[in-house]
């Protein structure tokens, strides 16, 4: 059991900077996801914690001890690689016990560990098989079992689900969550898949272009993204972004866009009074736009905008509408299956002012973001 602290970490590959003065603190027993697009440095960061990658400058503490120069074999960590890296010449049993045998753990303890982990991950009856005789999901579970028997302080997972098909990934996610709850290890999980990050982690460290974009609970990252990038990377379908400016209309402070004047919630409306005229980047999630045929039940903070539907994409339980508003502004929003919108139909949509995000166009940072 240990916490992991990264302080002012830097790393370059030649002239290319992969990690730029990054700070990150992971609490003991926490499940933290490093999320970000390909090449953002998340895997490099994980491999630094594992000791497979050197640290140019900065400090890495595991369990309070500086680990910069401790070789991987002397760190109390375990890792599951994206490729699973099962030893092809060894049976499932030998694969799982590999680390314990290296550490010269007595046979009896090995057997105990095996009889603990095999049912935990549903590997009954597979002990004698070779990796090539296993399915993708089974291989993933063997890789996880192999990591868990080592009783590591920190468990490092490098995109362990990216090779599974969608259905299997869902069960594997639930299973990982269950295992984490049962063993209570500190877990660092790397993925580029926002769904995995949202469902499993206690905190998400969103990385972009070698720096930390935001580090918070999934809920917060979704509701209050610190930057434009964070708002775009998390949430599906992608957020609508349009330029605007803080403005006043009918004694209310809101935001003026090509679509018209958008209302905000009362609290923010008061706060922004002094900023009238300031230009902003407006973000509206498709989930925060509601299509209602009868406009009785609207809040004071809702704004009704007139749009023309251009494209209807059926997603299953809901449909995604790509529509065009005034000033050639394209917007995407979701409707339930009960609602029926045809192409070229004119619709009125309510924008929830409480959920409208405002970013500074210069710094790309959320206005009014308070960590």
């Amino acid at each position, binding site marked *: 059991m240990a916490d992991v602290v990264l302080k002012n970490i830097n790393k370059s590959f030649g002239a290319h900077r992969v990690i730029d003065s990054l700070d990150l603190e992971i609490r003991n027993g926490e499940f933290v996801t490093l999320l970000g697009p390909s090449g953002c440095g998340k895997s490099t960061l994980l491999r630094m914690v594992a000791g497979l990658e050197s640290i140019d400058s900065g400090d890495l503490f595991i369990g309070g001890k500086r680990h910069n120069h401790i070789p*991987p074999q002397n760190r109390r960590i375990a890792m599951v690689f994206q490729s699973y890296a099962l030893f092809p010449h060894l049976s499932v049993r030998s694969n799982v016990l590999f680390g314990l045998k290296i550490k010269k753990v007595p046979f009896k303890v090995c057997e105990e560990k095996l009889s603990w982990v095999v049912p935990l991950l549903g590997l009954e009856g597979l002990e004698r098989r070779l*990796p090539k005789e296993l399915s993708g999901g089974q291989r993933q579970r063997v890789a996880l079992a192999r990591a868990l028997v080592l009783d590591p302080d920190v468990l490092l997972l490098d995109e362990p689900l990216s090779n599974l098909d969608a259905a299997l990934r869902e069960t594997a996610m639930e299973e990982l969550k269950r295992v984490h709850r049962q063993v209570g290890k500190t877990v660092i999980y790397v993925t580029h898949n926002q769904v995995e990050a949202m469902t499993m982690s206690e905190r998400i460290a969103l990385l972009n272009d070698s720096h930390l974009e935001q580090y918070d609970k999934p809920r917060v990252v979704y509701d209050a993204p610190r930057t434009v990038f964070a708002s775009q990377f998390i949430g599906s379908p992608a957020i609508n972004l349009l330029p605007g400016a803080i403005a006043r209309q009918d004694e209310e402070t809101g935001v003026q866009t090509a679509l018209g004047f958008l209302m905000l919630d009362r609290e923010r409306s008061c706060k922004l009074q002094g900023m009238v005229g300031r230009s902003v980047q407006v973000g509206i999630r498709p989930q925060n736009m509601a299509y209602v045929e009868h406009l009785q039940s609207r809040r004071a903070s809702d704004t009704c905008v007139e749009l023309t539907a251009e494209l209807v994409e059926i997603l299953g339980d809901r449909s995604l509408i790509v529509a065009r508003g005034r000033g050639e502004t394209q917007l995407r929003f979701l409707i339930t299956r009960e609602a029926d919108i045809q192409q070229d139909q004119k619709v009125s949509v309510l924008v929830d002012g409480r959920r409208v995000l405002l970013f500074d166009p210069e710094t790309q940072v959320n206005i009014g973001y308070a960590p």
Partner: protein
Amino acid sequence: MQRGRSGPTGVHYGVLWGLGIAIAVGLVAAPIFLLFKYSISDISSINTGGAPIPFWPYHPTLKYFTYLFGDRQFYGVIVNSLIVSVCTVAASMVIGVPAGYVLGRYRVPGRELMLVGLFSVRLFPDIVSVIPVAEFFIRLNAHNTYWGVVLAHSLLALPYVILMGMSAFEPIPRDLEHQAMVMGANRFQVFIKVLLPLAVPGLAAAAIYTFLLSWDEFIFSYFLLALGKISTLTLYLKQKMAFSPPQNLLAAISTCLSLPVIVFSLLLQKYMTAGITSGAIK
């Protein structure tokens, strides 16, 4: 029109393949057959007095083998050849496998130069390179010794062992190595427990090659051993040829020379199957 696999093209294709394989097998088998046939032929089946040599000897006989196996010197040279070959395999594997591992998996500065240097001895015909080598070995007092000829054969085999070792280690995924390290293994344990077992097919091929090379080698053995007491099978064959004996005896010796080669290859063949690493990486 649709043409299935059993259609006319399919049949022609199959016949062509069959023919190709038959020719290939024939090319390999014919000399072996001739060798064997001569070794069991009686004199009348060879000195036919103008008549064509029969496909199968008139009176097959094992008397040349009986002669060989009755010759005490013959046992001696077989044992010598075995000692030299096995030691050569051991020496070149012990040196060549770690070298192949390092050259195959790490960016070693001057790697290309090293490989060229290693191969330089084989860029010349053996008869050319043997002279400086023999001179050097004589100065080291390595002539007429087992270790001298083992060293010379290792010199010939090493470039190939290193090259085959490199290609045996190169395709092993790096993740396996890293995984073992994260699980607590040091570099030596990674090598012994993960990399070596996975490289076995490629290394077995290198071992076979080395064995064959040493078992069949003549020129270096001749220059280093011919004046001493140690004799190998190839030198024995040469010695018998000097007395121009009947072809049958030479064929019998050659058969004995070839037999272990065939047996050795068959035994290690199962390690040469590809695809052992499948399942490591999804």
